[in-house]
C-alpha cells in the first residue's frame, strides 16, 4: 500500500512537470546566447530580445493582435453579457437552446468554423477584405467565455433585489447601474480577460481569415517557425507569456478586491 501511494505521488509529479515543461523550456530557450536552439544553452544573454525589438514584423504583429483582441473583447462583452442576463433572468423553456447556441463557437471545431466563415464571406462578396471576416471570427471565438463567466456570477443571485429597487422608485436604468452591474462586474472582468487572451492566441480563425497585409501574432510566429530555428521565436513567445501573466494577475487583483467589497 505504501509503495502504491509513493508510485501515485511520483506519477502526479510527472504529470505536473509534463504540464509546465514546454512553457518553462520556451522561456529558458529565449535566454540562449547561441545562434541556434541548442541544448545545453551556450551561455545566458538577452540578445534575442533585442533582435526581437528591432524586428518590425513581430512588433507590428503584437500591436495588431492587441488591437484586434481589444475590439473583439469589447463587442463580445456587450453581446455576451446581454445574452447571459437573458439566459439567467428570462429564459424558460428555450434556456438549453440559448446556452448551446451561444456556446456553439466553443463546441464546434475552430478550423471548420473558420472555413465556413471563409465560404460565407466569399459568397456574400466580401471575402477576406477589410478584415471584417477576421474580426467576426474573433468575436465568435470570445463570446462563449464572456457568456460563461457572466452567467456564473449571476447564478444563485436573487433578482428580487432589483425588483425591490424598482418598487422603491428607482428607474430601470438606475436599478441596472446600481444593483445589477456591480453584481456582474467581476464576471465581466474575468470574462473580458479570458476573451482578450483567447483572441490574442487563437490560431485557426486567424490562419484561414487573415487576408492580405498584416497578420496576428500566432500566424507570424507560425510562419517564422516553419523555416527558422533561432531563439528569436522563443523571445517573442516569452514576451507573449509575460503579457498573459500580467493580464491574469491584474484581473485577479481586481477580482479579489471586488469580492471583498
Amino acid at each position, binding site marked *: 500500500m505504501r509503495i502504491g501511494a509513493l508510485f501515485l505521488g511520483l506519477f502526479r509529479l510527472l504529470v505536473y512537470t509534463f504540464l509546465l515543461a514546454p512553457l518553462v523550456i520556451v522561456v529558458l530557450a529565449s535566454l540562449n546566447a547561441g545562434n541556434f*536552439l541548442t541544448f545545453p544553452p551556450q551561455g545566458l544573454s538577452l540578445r534575442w530580445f533585442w533582435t526581437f525589438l528591432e524586428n518590425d514584423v513581430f512588433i507590428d504583429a503584437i500591436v495588431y493582435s492587441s488591437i484586434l483582441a481589444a475590439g473583439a473583447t469589447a463587442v463580445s462583452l456587450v*453581446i455576451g453579457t446581454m445574452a447571459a442576463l437573458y439566459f439567467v433572468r428570462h429564459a424558460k423553456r428555450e434556456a438549453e437552446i440559448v446556452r448551446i447556441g451561444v456556446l456553439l463557437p466553443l463546441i464546434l471545431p475552430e478550423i471548420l468554423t473558420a472555413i465556413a466563415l471563409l465560404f460565407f464571406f466569399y459568397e456574400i462578396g466580401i471575402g477576406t477584405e477589410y478584415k471584417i471576416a477576421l474580426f467576426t471570427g474573433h468575436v465568435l471565438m470570445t463570446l462563449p467565455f464572456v457568456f460563461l463567466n457572466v452567467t456564473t456570477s449571476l447564478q444563485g443571485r436573487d433578482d428580487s433585489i432589483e425588483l425591490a429597487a424598482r418598487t422603491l422608485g428607482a428607474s430601470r436604468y438606475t436599478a441596472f447601474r446600481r444593483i445589477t452591474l456591480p453584481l456582474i462586474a467581476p464576471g465581466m472582468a474575468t470574462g473580458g480577460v479570458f476573451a482578450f487572451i483567447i483572441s490574442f492566441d487563437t490560431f485557426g480563425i486567424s490562419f484561414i481569415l487573415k487576408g492580405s497585409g498584416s497578420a496576428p501574432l500566432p500566424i507570424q*510566429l507560425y510562419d517564422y*517557425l516553419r523555416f527558422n530555428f533561432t531563439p528569436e521565436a522563443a523571445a517573442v513567445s516569452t514576451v507573449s507569456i509575460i503579457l498573459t501573466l500580467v493580464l*491574469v494577475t491584474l484581473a485577479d487583483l481586481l477580482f479579489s478586491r471586488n469580492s471583498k467589497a
Partner: protein
Amino acid sequence: MRRFRASLLILPAAALIFLFIVLPYVTVLVMSFRAPGANGEPYGPGFGLQGYAQFFDEGYYLWSLPQSLLLGIVTTFVCLVLAYPIALHIAGARRRWRGLLYGIVLSPLLIGIVIRSYGWTILLGNSGVINSTLRDLGLIQRPLPLMYNDFGVVLALSHVFLPFMVLPLLSALQSMDPAVKQAARSLGARPFTIFRRVTFPVSMPGVQTGCILVFVLAISSYVTPALVGGMRVKTTTLLVVDALIDQFQWPFGSAMALILAVSAGVIVLIFARLTAMKWN
C-alpha cells in the same frame, strides 16, 4: 411588453450565431455538393458528387481518416490516464494548495497553441533538450525519433488538451458528497473497492464530457500536427486545409471536412452509448 423588452437582450447574440455560425455551416454543406472549378476557380457551376468521389477514390486521402481517428482516440486515452490522478488530487487537496494546482492545470490554456507546440519541438527535436541530454549522458549514440512521427504528435496533443480532461473530471468529482466515501470506508470497503464502486461511477459524467471534448479537439487540431509532425504526419484536418487554402479545391475540401465531422460524430455517439449503458 415585458417579454418583448427581454427578448431584445438575446437578439444580438442570436443574430450573430445565426448569421455567422448557422448560415456558414450550411454554406459548407452546399459547397461540398458543388462541381469542381476549372482555371483556378475555387468551384464550378452546377452540382455533383465529385468532391466525395475524389476522397474515396484516392487512398492517400481515404487512409488519412482512420489514422486521424486513431490518433484522436489514443490522445483521448492518454489524456484520461494522465488527468484522472490529477483531478483526484486537486479534488482532495487542501484549500490553500487547490488554487496553485488549479493554476498549473489551467496554465497551458492561457498560452497560445503555437507557443505550446513550439515548446514541444524544442524538447523533442533531434538536437532538442531530451536527445541532447541523453547523448551527453552517453545513453544513446543516435537521436531517438521523438518528433515528426505519431509519438510526438500524440504527446504534444495530450499536453495541449489535458486541461479539457481535468476540468470536467474535477467538477464531477467535486459534486460527490465526501460522506458517501466515509460510509463505504466505515462499512469495511478497501480503498480500491471504494474507487471502483463509489468514486469512478460518480465521476463518469466527467469522463464522458472530457473524452468527447478532447477527441473532437484533437482530431480537428491543425497547428500541433503541423509543427510537431512536421507535415510528415498527414491528418485529415491538415489535408482539408491543404485542399482548401493551397489547392483552392473548395468542394473537395468541404466534402472531406464533412466526412471527418460525420465520422467523429459516429464515434462520439458510440462512445456515449457504451458508457451510458455501463453506468446508468
